[in-house]
């Protein structure tokens, strides 16, 4: 038994050479950049200077942003909250569609839906966002319809809702694509077996399909959440400077006040928070799923 396993393993072991590009990208662009960012966050900010030359390192920036007042906690919380709401709604909308694509026996339906989904990825994100600005603007389509119907105009841009809707629009196709695999992996004879035992389609869904696709669903959710909380363009345009998410705050530190160390300190805490959340969810999940024989 052990020998068989070892054979399997060596067969699947890819030569180091093929892994090298991924490894190099990771070391230079992720780990390297992260270390530089951390170093930067420890430097002292001198107004008017972009390149900081100070040789002394301190946690002063962390204290300025995270120790003296609560305003940045507000931005952090807004990012996590808005991103969370958008993610949950996106996954909830995406799941039935992904289920349909995974289970339909009609090739045409599957192809059409997939093509439409993939097509949305090809639309430039600036174009996507502007299309929403046009839709939601004071003279936008939604307000035109409202006025035509005799209602008063509603202000969308600059509200949480506008940003959330924009994020859903951006996340929904990604969530769908990420969910197709996990749902497809649920053996359809298990669904039939449940139906045969008397379960209605709804019961089959909640008793079999959903729990068995849970690991993949959580992974898809985490992916969407990471994209949502770190969103930049969508809150920038649809938030109109009123709704600010962490990316926008960090961006303004870098590009408006040229406070690189300050931006770095904000980014480090933001990153740590997201990692902590992702790790927590993952941890909770693996513990719960071990019993199912997934572990």
């Amino acid at each position: 038994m052990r020998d068989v396993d070892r054979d399997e393993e060596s067969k699947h072991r890819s030569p180091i050479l093929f892994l090298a590009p991924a490894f190099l990208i990771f070391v230079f662009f992720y780990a390297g950049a992260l270390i530089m960012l951390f170093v930067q966050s420890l430097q002292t900010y001198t107004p008017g200077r972009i390149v900081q030359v100070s040789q002394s390192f301190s946690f002063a920036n962390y204290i300025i942003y995270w120790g003296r007042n609560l305003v940045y906690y507000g931005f952090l919380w807004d990012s996590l909250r808005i991103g969370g709401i958008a993610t949950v709604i996106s996954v909830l909308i995406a799941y039935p569609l992904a289920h349909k694509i995974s289970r339909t026996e009609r090739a045409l339906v599957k192809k059409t839906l997939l093509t439409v989904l993939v097509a949305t990825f090809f639309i430039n994100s600036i174009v996507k966002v502007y299309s929403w600005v046009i839709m939601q603007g004071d003279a936008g389509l939604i307000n035109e319809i409202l006025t035509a119907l005799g209602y008063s105009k509603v202000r969308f841009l600059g509200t949480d809702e506008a940003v959330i809707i924009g994020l859903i629009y951006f996340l929904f196709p990604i969530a769908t694509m990420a969910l197709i695999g996990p749902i497809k992996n649920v053996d359809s004879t298990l669904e039939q077996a449940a139906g045969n035992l008397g379960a209605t389609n709804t019961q089959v869904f909640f008793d079999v399909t959903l729990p068995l696709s849970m690991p993949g669903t959580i992974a898809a959710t985490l992916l969407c959440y990471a994209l949502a909380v770190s969103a930049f363009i969508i809150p920038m345009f649809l938030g109109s400077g009123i709704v600010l998410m962490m990316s926008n705050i960090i961006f303004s530190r870098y590009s408006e006040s040229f406070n690189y160390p300050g931006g770095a300190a904000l980014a480090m805490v933001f990153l740590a928070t997201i990692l902590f959340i992702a790790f927590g969810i993952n941890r909770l999940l693996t513990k719960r799923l071990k019993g199912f024989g997934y572990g």
Partner: protein
Amino acid sequence: MSDDKRYVDLELVGLSKKFGSTLAVDDVSLTMPEGEFLTLIGPSGCGKTTTLRMIAGFVTPTSGEVRVKGEDISGRPPYLRNTGMVFQNYALFPHMTVYENIAYGLKIRSYSEQTIRQNVREALDTVKLPGLEERYPKQLSGGQQQRVALARALVIQPAILLFDEPLSNLDLKLRQQMRSEIKAIQRRVGITTMYVTHDQGEALVMSDRLAVMNKGRVVQVGSPTEVYEKPKTRFVAEFIGEANYIEGTVLRSDSSGVETKIDGQVVFAPPDTALRENEKVGVCVRPERIQVYRGRESPATGERNALRGTVEEVVYVGSIVRYQVRLDRSKMVVDRMVASVDNLCAVGETVVVQWSDANTILLPADTG
């Protein structure tokens, strides 16, 4: 047939299924009395699984009806049909324990916790698996998973029990053991059962009746003995058991019997009033019904079918030996029990093959 006083439990009436332009199931009609074990058997793609799935409700028939106790259920979704299905891959819920798997159908039916507990225990006793309640399917062997699947199907007390090639993933020994166990459980519970397989051994051992399917149609229905002894077509003869099939011509046909000519030699068969002189006919003999005598002359056993030939191949399989005997243009396969290994015929040896009239099966010529 007509003197059967049992209730009809399951009835298929002109059941057909088209997938695109292919007719997967073609006008299948079957009637199963209460408690019967009927096997749908045929090669892959013959429509047997599709037929079963139409009964369970996973496939919607293009036309025809499925009746359970006289009631047409073809329009109902699977969950309102009360059929218990055992799947080929067992289809046990991997995220539920053995107990939860078996209890699932009862929970759906909102039984009380106590009733569920008791029924699950009884079901596990029935399939001889007590004490494994808390295991997950992954922790069970193939045979055990099979039993859990059976218990799960039985515990809901379905009107009909359906099996979709349930033993094909097990090794030979276990398969043979499970055959007789499934059969014993079915008999004890007395549940009407439809069983799908392509394994003729399974079909012959387990069934009350077989329905042999080919290209979407039921070609013959009968008890294992009927189907084996009196196949209606060449296809049935060759699919259920093995058969030597040689085409010939009817020389004479009357009340005393049928005389046919194959490969220049005369073969006698029991009377068949439907056959006329000079008609083409398929002559069929089972390999194990043929005797082999060494030398050129057959002993005077009183059996008239005696053909001379040469041994072309000898395959020794332990309990039996299989000879391939070349006649003139045709060949015959003969199976003999090995009484003594010193007395086997050799390749190239001249022999006489012999069988009784009663063992000659006459079939319509040239049917697939």
